């Protein structure tokens, strides 16, 4: 067990107490800064605030009576602080502070920070820029207006003058469509840090953005945070809540970090996914808490138009020490994955009360570029998850989702529309209080899942297990306490898989070429 420094800004540091638990530490422990007690913590990833710029700190811990060696944190140099109140922001929960805060952002020089101090600052959309640190102090709230006429629109596409190219700004569910700009928005920005103990509140309710939310009204609903073609962006510490639609939507952006972020939307809110990286590379999600009304994390790469045009998968993504709860899926891949997803690893996390743990959603028609490969889950605790593992290759989304083409169990010819799933690995996972099934895995008969590995997995069922539909596909019937229901797989590896208390056969398989059991 040791302390590791995982992030530092001009005014904060983030440490990880290794081998101490998953998201929460097994025991509460003490954190010391320069020998003085800073706080008690029960989290593996802990943020320390109120530091001074360009200063060295010794951060240590005492866990279960034992001293944990200090780690040295040198905070970043800071030139100036631009307090938004000095730019005319009221922070009284009434005045429109958008212009004042935007002024501070645009005026912020390199190596400096824009500080939003304690107060409620009403805003519509704010736009980030290069080399910016935006800090939300404790009890600072960026509180969004909900009147849609206050929000600018990001056009879906703008054609180039020579008519050979297009410039894509707005995005809605995998397509380049007119969308209201996000509450916090970045377009073509580099080196941005959003940090602090404060909150961005979308203030959404069923009286505004969530009302009639499937219908486009002027433009599609805004995200809470949207970055388009940005690089080196870190979001740390803040709370984001009550989003109009997907909460955090990085889009064609790279080298991203989300550390100790809290993402909260009501469980009955519509399409309020927590974090949806779409066509992004090098993404770290660390120590983040997500409780939302749809998928907690949904990994995407666009629908077929964007995939064919830009061929940009989401890849090189790590999710560690996170808590996902209450949503539809804890970690979902899809359904907009027409450009593929690869090299994604989820480790050391806890999932609670979600409908599904890992959820893969795909279907015929996503296209041959839709290749899912090298996706792993390791060292995860799931509790009260209806069905821990779901891979659904017949997801009945989109207008033709319930047609014969999408839903048939018969093998169809492999063509340009056929997606594929290569390697999925699940290791060292404990799933307690399962309800519907341990796993419901369906590849396509004409394009089977290459290799599916379950290693050191324990499934236990709830005493009063609820019934439900494991996967949103036409052929899936309601059930309860099913074991592993698997179909259309080339190689299924089962090493030390314990299924305790299911009804019926532990493994129900169809069209699985090879089962390797140890």
């Amino acid at each position, binding site marked *: 067990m040791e302390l590791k420094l995982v992030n530092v800004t001009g005014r904060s540091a983030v440490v990880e107490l290794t081998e101490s638990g998953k998201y929460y530490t097994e025991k509460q422990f003490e954190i010391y800064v320069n020998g003085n007690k800073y706080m008690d913590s029960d989290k593996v990833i802990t943020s320390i605030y109120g530091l001074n710029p360009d200063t060295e700190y010794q951060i240590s811990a005492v866990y279960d009576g034992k001293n944990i060696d200090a780690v040295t944190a040198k905070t970043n140099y800071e030139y100036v602080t631009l307090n938004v109140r000095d730019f005319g922001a009221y922070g009284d929960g009434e005045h429109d502070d958008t212009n004042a805060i935007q002024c501070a952002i645009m005026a912020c020089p390199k190596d400096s920070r824009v500080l939003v101090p304690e107060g409620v600052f009403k805003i519509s959309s704010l736009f980030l820029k290069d080399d910016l640190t935006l800090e939300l102090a404790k009890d600072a709230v960026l509180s969004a207006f909900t009147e849609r*006429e206050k929000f600018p*629109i990001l*056009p*879906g*596409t703008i*054609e180039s*003058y020579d*008519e050979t190219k297009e410039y894509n700004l*707005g995005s*809605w*569910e995998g*397509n*380049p*469509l*007119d969308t209201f700009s996000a509450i916090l928005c970045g377009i073509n920005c580099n080196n941005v840090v959003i940090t602090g103990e404060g909150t961005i509140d979308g203030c959404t309710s069923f009286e505004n953005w969530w009302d009639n939310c499937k*219908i*486009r*009204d*002027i*433009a599609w609903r805004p995200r809470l945070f949207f970055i388009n073609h940005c690089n080196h962006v870190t979001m740390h510490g803040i709370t984001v809540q009550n989003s109009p639609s997907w909460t955090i939507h990085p889009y064609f952006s790279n080298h991203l970090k989300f550390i100790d972020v809290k993402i909260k939307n009501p469980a009955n809110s519509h399409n309020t996914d927590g974090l949806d990286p779409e066509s992004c590379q090098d993404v770290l999600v660390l120590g983040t808490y997500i409780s939302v009304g749809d998928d907690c994390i949904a990994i995407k790469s666009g*629908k*077929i*138009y964007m995939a*064919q045009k830009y061929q940009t998968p989401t890849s090189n993504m790590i999710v560690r020490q996170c808590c996902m709860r209450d949503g539809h899926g804890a970690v979902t891949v899809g359904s907009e994955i027409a450009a593929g997803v690869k090299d994604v690893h989820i480790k050391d996390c806890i999932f609670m009360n979600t409908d599904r743990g890992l959820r893969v959603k795909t279907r015929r028609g996503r296209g041959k570029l839709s290749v899912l490969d090298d996706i792993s889950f390791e060292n995860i605790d799931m509790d009260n998850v209806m069905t821990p593992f779901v891979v659904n290759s017949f997801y009945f989304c*989109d*207008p*033709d989702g319930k*047609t014969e083409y999408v839903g048939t169990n018969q093998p169809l010819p492999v063509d340009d529309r056929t997606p594929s799933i290569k390697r999925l690995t699940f290791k060292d996972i404990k799933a307690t209080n399962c309800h519907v099934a341990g796993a419901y895995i369906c590849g396509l008969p004409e394009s089977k899942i290459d290799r599916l590995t379950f290693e050191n997995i324990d499934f236990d069922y709830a005493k009063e297990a609820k019934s439900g539909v494991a996967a949103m596909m036409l052929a899936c019937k309601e059930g309860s306490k099913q074991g592993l229901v698997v179909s259309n797989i080339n190689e299924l590896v089962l090493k030390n898989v314990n299924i305790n208390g299911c009804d019926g056969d532990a493994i129900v398989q169809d069209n699985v070429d090879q089962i390797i059991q140890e």
Partner: protein
Amino acid sequence: MKRDKELEKILAESIKDVTINLHESKNYEEQIEKSALLSASSKMYREVKDDFYKIFTVNSLSAIIENASFQEVLSYMAGEALFFAYDQTGDERYKNFICELAEKLLKKTRNSDGVFAGNDEAKETDLSDAYEKLPFYMNYETKFGGKEHYSDVVKQYQAVRAAKRCEKCGLYNNNSDLEVALYMASMIDTMEVTDQPVYEIFAGVKEIFKETFAALKEQGKLGTAEELKEDQLTAKLVLLYALLKGCRMKAILSEKYEEELNRMTEQAFSMLKAQGKAVFKNHHMLLAATMMAYAESIKERSYQVYGRNKGGAIWS
């Protein structure tokens, strides 16, 4: 463009002289003309709000649906007017008729290219296979059909393109200017009623629209306001309708083309006004084309107005 009261008066007087006796269409051209008139009349009502156009459209269609032996081409091509009549009246007869038509359409024999071929599998694909049926087909799929056959609509356009387009020059050399114009109009009308989330379908039709426009431009087929001739006006006005709508829907660049298109449209209207109402007597297709182009030309084009009205043509 601003409203032209003089032209509106001529158009209103001209259409008052028209009766759509559907059971008595003498030939295919007459069916096309009558269909175009009904659709154009619905467009005029939307822009000028003269009740006469609404009554004309609704009453004409009412007679269609009450007559068992409807004329197929007329019905499909009057698709926009059928949906308009349903929107305006809420009369379920129009919806039922639309659904029956769609059912008949889906059961049609297809030829070897996969397009609807009527009763003749050996029928060669032509541009008419697009402009007769596809806007109606897409509109039906969007509003009542569950969008199940969206990909079929774009495949039909692709089949027509493959069969009729000259690979070398990009034009449709074996078709008349009017047929090409109606084909362009059908594509932009289809795009207008395609549901946004199925973007690849919209993009598929848009690609053919842009490609055809580029070929017309490069081969000098568009012409200028100064080059307009009277015997070209029908085809030209249908084409101007399609291209102005293409600018509005951002299928082609407004900045580059809209000004000249507006000049051509104004010139065309001047030429017609100079002849008065007589120019439209027994020239129903010219009347329809003028109404289509006029209604599109006076449409509010700034996003803040039409984009901010729910359900408008607000494509990007």
